[in-house]
Structure formats: C-alpha cells, structure tokens
C-alpha cells in the first residue's frame, strides 16, 4: 500500500455531481444590427437529471445528463426605410398655406417587421459518456537541464503531476428527441387544458394535467428506447456508436489530453519561502487514481 491514500465514496460523488449540476447555469442576452437587419437574443442553458456512477472497470459513467436551453429566444427584425407621401401645400395664400394634403408615412417603426422565436425550455440536448482519470508527469519544455526544482519553481515552470479526463465513449444527442417532444407535449397539454377547460377551477385543471403527465412520460420513455440501447451498448463495448459520437469522442480525447483538470506541483511544497529560507518540498511518486464500484482512490508515495 502506498504512503498516502485518499478515498472518496461514490455517494459523495453523486451528491457533489447533483450540486454542481444544479448550480451550473449560464445565460446571455444581447442584440446586433447589420444595416436594416437586426437580431436580438436571450439564450442560456441549465443542466437537469443525469446520474454519475463509479464503475468497477476503473471508469466513471455519466448517464443522460440533459442540457436544457432556457431561455432560448431569438428575434429577427427588418427596418425598412420610412416612406412618406403627401403633406405638401395644395392651396397657398399670401398669409400661408390654407390647405395641406394629408401626410401619410409607412414603415415608421423600428424594426418594421419583427419575427420572435421563443423555444425556451423546449429543446434539450443529452450527454452520456464514460471516462477514466489518468495521471501524467509533465516537465515543462521551457525547463532547461541545468535548472533545479527550485529554479523551475522560481521561473513558474515546475514539474507537475497532471490529472486528465480520458473519454472512453461519448453519446451526444444534440437534440434529445424524446425530451424535446415531451416538453412540446407538456406545453401543448398545458395550453389546451387552460384554454379549452378554462371554466374549470384551478385544482380540476391541475388534476387533469397530472393524469395526462404519465402519458407524456410514457411517450418520452418509448422515444428514448433507441438511445438507451445505444448508450448501454456503448458502455458495454467501451466505444462510441455512430459516426458523430465517434468523432465527438475523438475531439474530446484530443482536447482532454491537452487540458488537465488539475495539476499538482512536484516536488510538492509543504512549507513556503520564509524570508531567505527555501521552501520545503516533498517529491511525490507513483501518483495514481483508481476507480472501483464504490469509491475513487488517490494514492501516492513520498520519495526519499
């Protein structure tokens, strides 16, 4: 067994995953004009559902994490130059104009034509995938052979242990048909019940919606069967199925191998500079992350 061991339970990972998922939401709103054309947008996303599972094959599985695009509002505008006719004098007198022709202007608005598109909460993407956490020892290319570890630290190019995500397979549904259809059905049922049965009390309408809810869920489940099988097979075989997912995995692999999620300086400083006194640094060896069914374990040795 190694000198240092830290293990984190799967339950802790699940709670952490849920917290980060619920807290992660971004949105932006802005507008732009291109001559007579204008566009404004209010777009954002949040995460819903999904599970994280530590697997016995040293990997972490994330299943059916939904990306909900909400808000998703787009407004296209066209501003046609204003056109006015009339308004000139048709009966001039020495004391001024006696009669003006009425002035009529068209296309006075800005924009004159507006096409709003509001798909907030309707469209969803879904991400599933499995990955390993790899460790890699990194020596900065800028470090010269003559540099000591302390020289490298002073130059801000210390050696590091890097933690990298290694995607095994990815399944990305840019538009999650099942959930998107389900959301549209939910919205349609809400509108229909509220409009057609508006004479009923609120509790009665809520009851009807509640009765129809499982039907929509059934539709979601049926539409998702194909994707579930796809994900199950991907996890079983450890490869992405489908050209898009295969390419997505390769792209994710490329970027993940260049962008560590965490770095640990080596040797690791346990006491900082104290005036002229050098920091105390401890060399770390054999750093490894292993994943089992119930926990993730980080192990390391302290070198002499």
């Amino acid at each position, binding site marked *: 067994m190694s000198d240092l061991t830290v*293990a984190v339970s799967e339950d802790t990972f699940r709670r952490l995953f849920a917290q980060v998922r619920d807290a992660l939401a971004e949105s932006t709103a802005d507008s732009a004009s291109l001559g007579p054309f204008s566009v404004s947008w209010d777009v954002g996303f949040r995460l819903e559902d999904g599970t994280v599972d530590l697997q016995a094959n040293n990997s972490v599985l994330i299943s059916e994490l939904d990306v909900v695009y909400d808000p998703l509002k787009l407004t296209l505008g066209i501003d046609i130059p204003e056109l006015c006719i009339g308004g000139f004098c048709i009966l001039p007198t020495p004391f001024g104009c006696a009669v003006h022709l009425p002035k009529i202007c068209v296309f006075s608005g800005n924009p004159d034509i507006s096409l709003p598109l509001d798909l907030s909460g309707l469209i969803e993407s879904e991400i599933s995938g499995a990955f390993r956490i790899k460790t890699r020892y990194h020596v900065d290319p800028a470090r010269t052979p003559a540099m000591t570890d302390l020289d490298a630290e002073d130059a801000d190019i210390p050696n590091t242990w890097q933690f990298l995500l290694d995607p095994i397979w990815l399944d990305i549904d840019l538009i999650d048909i099942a959930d998107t259809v389900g959301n549209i059905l939910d919205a349609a049922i809400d509108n229909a019940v509220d409009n057609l049965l508006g004479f009923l009390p609120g509790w009665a309408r809520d009851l009807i919606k509640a009765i129809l809810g499982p039907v929509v869920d059934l539709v979601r489940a049926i539409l998702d069967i194909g994707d579930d099988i796809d994900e199950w097979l991907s996890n079983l075989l450890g490869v992405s199925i489908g050209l898009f997912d295969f390419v997505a995995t390769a792209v994710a692999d490329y970027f993940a191998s260049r962008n560590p999620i965490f770095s640990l300086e080596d040797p690791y400083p346990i006491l900082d500079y104290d005036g*002229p006194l050098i920091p105390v640094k401890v060399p770390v060896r054999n750093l490894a992350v292993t994943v089992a069914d*119930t926990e993730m374990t980080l192990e390391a040795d302290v070198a002499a």
Partner: protein
Amino acid sequence: MALTDHCDVFGSAHEDGINRIATHVMRQRPSLFNYGTQLFASNHELLCEPIHPHPEVVRRGNPLITIEDPLPILGTDGLLGLDFCFQLTRLELDVHPGNRFSLPPQLGTLPAQQMALRTEVCGAVGCPDRELSERYGDIIAAIARYESQGKIADVPLPPLQPIPTKRFECFCLELFATLSARIVTTAGTPTLGLFLEGLEIVDVKPDPLESTMECVIATTLRVGILPRLRVALDAFTFELGKFASLSVSPTPTSSAVPHNPALEQDRIKAFVNVAVGP
C-alpha cells in the same frame, strides 16, 4: 471492503511516508533543528553531529543553524557567557504496531492506537580552561569594584560575550515518547489533539536527574506545546468554485469506526464526513 464503507472520505498516511517527509524537512530547513552561538555557525566542524543539508540549502546560502546568544554565566550581569550548540539529530515515528524501533523497557510495548516518537538530541557547551576563566574572573572583580565606587554607573555595558574556548564536550540523549490522538471538545468546539502518554530519556544518571528532566519535558509538552497544536474541526469548508461548498467533519465513532483518527497498521487514518452545499 471499501475504505469508505462508513464515511464519505478516508485518508491515511503510512509511517514510512511521514518519516520521509520529516527527513525532507530536516534537510531543507536545518536551521529549525540546529541551534548554536555564532562560533558554531562559523565553524560547523565543531558541531556534535554533522548536518547533511539538501544541496539547494547550500547553493542558496541558507543558514544551517539558528544563531543564539551565548548561555549567560550567572553573576556576570549579562557580560559573559558560554558558547553552546543544540541539535535535534533524529526524528522517527512508529505507528502501532511498534516495529521500527524498540521502546525502552520503562515504556513497555507500544499499546494499540498509539504511536511512538524517537528523537535524538545532542548538545555541547564550550568549557574555557581554568587560567582563562580566572582572568575573566579578575575582570568581573574589577568591574564590581568600580561599580561599588560609582565610577562606571552611567557607562553602558557591552553586549554578552562568550568566553573563548576550544574545548567542547558533546553529549547525546535519546528520547522516546508515546502519543495518542483524540478528538476532544475545547471551548465548546471539537478539536483534534495529540496527547503525551509516556516519555523516557535513556541513560541519564542519577535517576532523580532523569526523572526531573522527564518531568520538565513532559509538563512542557502537555501544558505548553501540545495544547497549542490542537486543530479545530468546525472550520473546514472548501469552496468548489461558485458551484458547491464542502464542509468536512470527522465521522463520529461507532462500532463500525471505533477510533477516529485511528493509529493502526503502521498508518494514521482519518474518517471524514462531507456535507455538500451550494
């Protein structure tokens, strides 16, 4: 059986790793473990035990010893002192079961859920020869005479000076201590503390002197040092960016986790619960 069957996070450190870390600290910060007067700082060969610093310590010109004033000689009104050095030359930890070193018979076998500490301290005091001592004695006598006559009442005294000497007698003592670690309540807050269970200085005679030294050291540790090392356990909150905060607390002891922290199988183990919040 998983390490986290009864907690959220488990951490452990093997005594081998802890001892290697101690060695790194001793080599990279030798001035924390070696003390002496300017004489020893300028003449390392006079030290009782050679220091083996990390090459970077030498390259960066870091001091090997912390310079201290000479030991004042009583009756000289702070005018004269003796050169001395004091070194902590060994620091080694053995977590139950005791298998790295043998404890002295007075401490017996290392009990369960305890760890043993072996240290070696060496020291030396410069001992001037008789002729030189008597010359300095003449100077002190003259000063006393002038003081009694009020001739040097307003003259500032020079700083403490060591009496020159080249004779040093080194001594080394081996000290063993057994320690336990427990979570206790301090001022209403749970704290992790180290507690001295036993202490033994080897081969000091006569026995009452040994007992007196042990009493002084043990009392200093129990009253002055270890209480200040207690770590409050209610303030460990880590932010994970803007997404989550983690509050950690020790896992309560139970039949499943009878000791926390646990000192067993040559390791210091800690069982921790984690609360995840926004």
